[in-house]
């Protein structure tokens, strides 16, 4: 939970609406899309953030159970990491 994560710096990202964003990995030529909670988490990753700090903000935003939030956030971050969209700082 004290891991610090951040968006990969060279990804291009554009918001399409308040709840949807698209990203382009120029080097890989791949597009990604995030919406709703995924998009909100992405918004928090604009600068380096500790995972527990991120979870804290999400618990405040969504009034969800902290354990559930942590579990689902971790799973989501792992997916982003596997695809090379976030880096561990």
């Amino acid at each position, binding site marked *: 939970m004290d891991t610090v994560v951040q968006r990969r710096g060279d990804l291009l990202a*554009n918001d399409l609406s308040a709840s949807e964003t698209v990203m382009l990995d*120029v080097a890989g030529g791949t597009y990604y899309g995030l919406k709703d909670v995924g998009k909100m988490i992405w918004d928090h990753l604009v600068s380096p953030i500790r995972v527990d700090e991120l979870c804290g903000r999400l618990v405040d935003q969504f009034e969800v159970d902290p354990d559930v939030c942590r579990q689902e956030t971790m799973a989501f971050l792992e997916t982003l990491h596997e695809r090379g969209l976030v880096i561990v700082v």
Partner: protein
Amino acid sequence: MSAVTTDPGYWFRAYQLLFAASFPIPEMMTAEPVTADQEQVPDVLIRSAEFPDRLTNPLGSSGVHEVNADALILRVADVGRYLVREGREILIDRDPDATDHDVRVYLLGTCMGALLHQRGFLVLHASGVVTDRGCLLFTGESGAGKSTLLAEFLHRGHKMVVDDVCAVRFDSADRPIVVPSYPRTRLWADAADRFAIDTSGLARTRPSWDKFERQVGEQFWDQEEPVRHVFHLVGPQDSDEISLERLAPMDAFSTLVDNTYRGILLDGMDLRSSHFDLASRAARSVEVTRVARPLGSDTVEELANRILASVGAR
């Protein structure tokens, strides 16, 4: 760039650009001829010329093309070679056996698309008609019914602003605007039959392709027009009725990317990231609707009715 020192002979206007060419291009609208006391400088010069076989630093290539940030070389067997550079010039080194018409098919297709990409437009594979609710663009794979739908709108008296290579720019308020192309449409023989259009005197787009060209004359809309709606036609579905499904912005974005004209050239033209911005901006302000029609029934009139009703247009 070589300066234009002599009048190349033929002047046209298309995509709000002034073209000068060394041969006739009957598909385009003729522009005012050069007057003796006033030198006219074209935005784009099209001429026959020899040029090197290769680009010095290609970023992308295939058996038929080479491309970099400034130029595209296209090679078409039995037709010739084309060089499109800096959004300002198209050189053609034609095969001695090529017909004028064949030369223009690739000039007005891939080469025009590349030129418009080079000039910074969002270039879509789309046709467009004008309604009292702005321009409606139609995209879709071949066989999805795009030509037939366009023919139906023309039959109803709507004006056509573009067919095939569609250039979109953004105005100062970031609204997408379609730029008028030229008054020619292509239609498949079955669409022509349906509307009782006599195809016997029309040029075929390629020998053996059963697709015909038609000048739409007064039914061409030569003004820029805001685009608020894109209708993406998919192939016939196993269902009883026409369905219109408004896409969420992310799917709208994907549809615009997938229907980018010659999108395969974007990486080689070093335009992938600027195109990403253009497609995102368009997806923010255009409504994209997926249109599916039932298999095996003639529904084009109903399709046009449904599309017009969905945007509140007549």
